[in-house]
């Protein structure tokens, strides 16, 4: 008989961890043949008929498990959407709401305690409640409620997905507030950004002058989204502020763990009919998010009598977020606007000074349950600005637009229902969180670009100021008028940039967004951002689009596709000459490796050896250039500058010649050493070409081998339009190529639509994604439905 230890060890072999220590009996309940709970997940199937409290609806799946939901009215449709979301992604939905509520540890145990502590301090849950309060009573609110009822209809079948059975718990009922949390998650991921804290931490460690160079606010380039004829003046400003001396690195490093990983961003472009072969616009979007099993997005088609929509949804929210309807198509990329401010206070015990008065923190003690472990207590404190984040003695207050209620669900519903550009733009004006670059095009040839979202005009003593520093909250610096954390904001307040004044373009003939600077600071009346993404992709996009437009032949959908799959890496174009110039300083082995970069076309394709060398070199070079100094300063290596800074440090830069810590170094030696490191790594790992290293490594949250996706070699790098970042598992989480000329738009998901491990559609699109292929975005309108929703029964809750 296997001992308890060996059986438990078998259960734990994949790495769920000590948190899932369960008595033997419970293990047998789950894994015994025939009776085992886990195997029900292997043999359950979705029933053909489901009772609904609303009207009829049908679901038809295509050969990739992408469903088409058809109904006569919205509530009936969204009930079915909720049901299907649950059938295919319930565990993912539960995981997200648990993460945002700070209740992960209750399900999975010890290893998520830090995450729960952070999410409790931020109290996203109360913000989501405020959002629901604003939304309920609206048509969008009814849709969310119908969707939740659909989720619960599935949940009541007790046909729980495999992951629940492995962990041994059942999902709680789904509520509209949970749907609001889904939106908070994406908003946080895209705009929860502690750049000012990070910059202040670097300034504390290395001095303000160094910080201005290695953590600048702006990059020098001419490819802003809204290009102008004026030079893009860099935004020079004073101090970064102080993060509060020692211990600050700790807080910044800790918070960096809750920001989404480097590389989260996206591409989009819109080309007007005057430049295209069809005379109608082309639109493309590929959001770069964490690549997960199952994917962040869930693809579907919605069919109503008065409109049909196709594209991707977030499981847990009813509407199509990126996609197309009968009238037009739209996409989003992260704008990088500054919607989060950090505050310092004079604190005395449980009080902080705010202006002339002393106020008490709004304090609450909560318990974080830990499955298989010791429960934790966390004290949640709030100031007038929002949550007080605490870490090893350092405390800062945070204001973030996502902590206040927003109308985004109404905006997305509006987009789904829009009958053209004007209605779409009206919908976008309510898209409060997250701030995004929105592009739109319709069948009549209209195009539009608009920055969306609440953007605060922060003021000190009534004067507008930049938000790129830590504010003295006690002195009432950086105030956001109209902002109400955990409540309803005043949307009409002069504390927000008006929609008309946000950067936008009416009927642009050509516009591309890739998270780069939105508009030159000198061309903007308002402070917008304390840092955009480096313009590797932005520059490449505009270079290629300008070339295509300048050439005599009009743009075709094939051009759009080629652009989305472009793997030309501008980092390589910039820096390979420097590597080659340093060859005399290299060892023989390193030099022969560097020689492989000669005559390279700078494309990061999986069959390329040069791409392999360059990709590995970059990581080693970055570690050698920044690592020792950041370590010596006690700073987390998470805080090191990005490749734009790294590769623009010329040999005479003070970072080498006169460093803030340690002895001067020669850039050439560091270069040579990095190539040597690369050679060693290539030999150790046995890599031959880029695809040996650059593979899809898309993991399920459990990181159990069989639940992770297969690994496929793929083209692209963190800096190319065709985007993939192996180290942090980020990349093009969806690819959409929209066209209006009668042919189908194209799309692909990096994975499978169905989160059910036992489904044929668990990972069936991944290879196509890795190979640069697409499928037509075609609803299934004929054939007998997989599921019919019959009225007269079920609960509307």
């Amino acid at each position: 008989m296997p001992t308890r230890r060996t059986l438990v060890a078998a259960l734990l072999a994949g790495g769920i961890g000590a948190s899932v220590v369960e008595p033997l009996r419970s293990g047998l309940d789950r894994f015994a043949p025939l009776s085992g709970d886990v195997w029900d997940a292997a043999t359950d199937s979705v029933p053909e008929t489901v009772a609904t409290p609303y009207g009829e609806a049908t679901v038809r799946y295509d050969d990739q498990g992408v469903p088409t939901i058809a109904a006569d009215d919205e509530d009936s449709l969204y009930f079915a959407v909720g049901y299907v979301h649950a059938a295919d992604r319930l565990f993912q939905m539960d995981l997200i709401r648990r993460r945002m509520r700070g209740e992960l540890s209750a399900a999975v145990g010890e290893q998520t305690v830090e995450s729960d502590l952070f999410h409790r301090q931020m109290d996203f849950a109360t913000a989501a409640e405020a959002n629901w309060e604003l939304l309920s009573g609206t048509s969008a609110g009814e849709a969310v409620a119908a969707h939740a009822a659909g989720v619960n209809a599935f949940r009541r079948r007790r046909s729980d997905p495999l992951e629940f059975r492995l962990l041994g718990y059942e999902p709680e009922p789904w509520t509209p507030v949970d749907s609001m949390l889904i939106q908070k998650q994406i908003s946080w991921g895209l705009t929860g950004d502690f750049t000012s804290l990070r910059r202040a931490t670097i300034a504390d460690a290395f001095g303000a002058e160094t910080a201005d160079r290695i953590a600048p606010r702006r990059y020098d380039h001419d490819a802003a989204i809204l290009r102008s004829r004026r030079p893009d003046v860099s935004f020079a400003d004073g101090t970064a502020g102080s993060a509060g001396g020692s211990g600050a690195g700790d807080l910044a490093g800790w918070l960096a763990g809750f920001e989404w990983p480097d590389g989260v961003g996206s591409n989009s472009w819109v080309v007007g009919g005057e430049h295209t072969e069809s005379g109608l616009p082309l639109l493309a979007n590929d959001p770069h998010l964490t690549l997960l099993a199952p994917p962040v997005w869930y693809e579907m088609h919605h069919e109503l009598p008065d409109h049909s929509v196709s594209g991707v949804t977030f499981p847990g929210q009813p509407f199509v977020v990126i996609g197309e309807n009968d009238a037009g198509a739209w996409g989003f990329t992260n704008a990088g606007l500054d919607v989060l401010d950090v505050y310092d206070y004079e604190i005395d015990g449980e009080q902080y000074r705010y202006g002339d008065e002393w106020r008490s923190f709004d304090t609450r003690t909560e318990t974080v349950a830990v499955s298989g472990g010791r429960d934790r207590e966390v004290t949640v404190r709030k100031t007038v600005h929002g949550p007080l984040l605490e870490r090893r003695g350092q405390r800062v207050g945070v204001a973030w637009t996502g902590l206040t209620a927003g109308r985004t669900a109404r905006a997305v519903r509006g987009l789904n229902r829009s009958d053209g550009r004007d209605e779409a733009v009206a919908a976008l004006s309510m898209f409060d969180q997250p701030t995004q670059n929105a592009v739109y095009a319709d069948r009549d040839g209209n195009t539009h670009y608009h920055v969306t979202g609440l953007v605060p005009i922060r003021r000190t003593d009534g004067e507008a100021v930049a938000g790129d520093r830590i504010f003295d909250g006690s002195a009432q610096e950086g105030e956001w008028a109209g902002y109400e954390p955990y409540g309803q904001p005043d949307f009409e307040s002069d504390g927000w940039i008006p929609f008309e004044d946000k950067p936008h373009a009416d009927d642009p003939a050509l516009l591309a967004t890739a998270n780069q600077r939105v508009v030159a600071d000198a061309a903007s009346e308002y402070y917008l951002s304390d840092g955009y993404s480096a313009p590797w992709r932005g520059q490449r996009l505009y270079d290629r689009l300008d070339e295509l437009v300048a050439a005599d032949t009009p743009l075709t959908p094939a051009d759009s596709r080629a652009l989305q799959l472009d793997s030309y890496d501008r980092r390589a174009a910039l820096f390979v000459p420097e590597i080659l110039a340093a060859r005399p300083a290299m060892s023989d082995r390193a030099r022969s490796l560097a020689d492989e970069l000669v005559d390279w076309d700078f494309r990061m394709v999986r069959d390329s050896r040069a791409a392999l060398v360059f990709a590995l070199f970059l990581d080693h070079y970055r570690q050698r250039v920044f690592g020792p100094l950041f370590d010596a300063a006690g700073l987390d290596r998470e805080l090191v500058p990005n490749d734009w800074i790294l590769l623009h440090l010329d040999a005479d830069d003070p970072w080498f010649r006169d460093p803030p810590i340690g002895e001067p170094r020669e850039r050439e030696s560091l270069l040579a050493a990095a190539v040597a490191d690369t050679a060693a790594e290539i030999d150790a790992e046995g890599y031959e070409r880029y695809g040996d290293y650059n593979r899809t490594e898309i993991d399920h949250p459990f990181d159990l081998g069989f639940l992770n996706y297969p690994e496929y070699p793929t083209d692209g790098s963190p800096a190319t339009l065709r985007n993939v970042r192996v180290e942090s598992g980020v990349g093009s989480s969806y690819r959409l190529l929209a066209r209006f000329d009668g042919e189908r738009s194209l799309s692909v998901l990096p994975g499978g639509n169905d989160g059910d491990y036992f489904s044929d559609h668990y990972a069936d699109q991944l290879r196509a994604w890795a190979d640069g292929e697409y499928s037509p975005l075609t609803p299934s309108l004929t054939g007998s439905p997989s599921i019919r929703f019959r009225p007269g029964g079920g609960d509307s809750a």
Partner: protein
Amino acid sequence: MLAGTVGALLATVHWSGLLAGGALVGLAWPTLRRAVLAGLGFGIAVVALFALELALGGSLVATLRMGVFGLVPVVVSIVAAPLGATVRGLVPDATAGD
């Protein structure tokens, strides 16, 4: 045969059915050694039935890919059923020794 069928039915409801099924099958044999062998046969039959159930549900391959997790039901069955059959050892043999 009857004991085996009853045992299999019990096992679909709860894992204790593996023990009970093994016991039922084992008790039908004259000696402990043959009882345990019969129990093992029952355990193997349960695994085959399980595999069939998965195959009918289209999940056999996916289960095989689960590695150690997919192995647990096999181990459990092949251990529990003969274990159940050892109950035969509590009952005096029909013939003395074997």
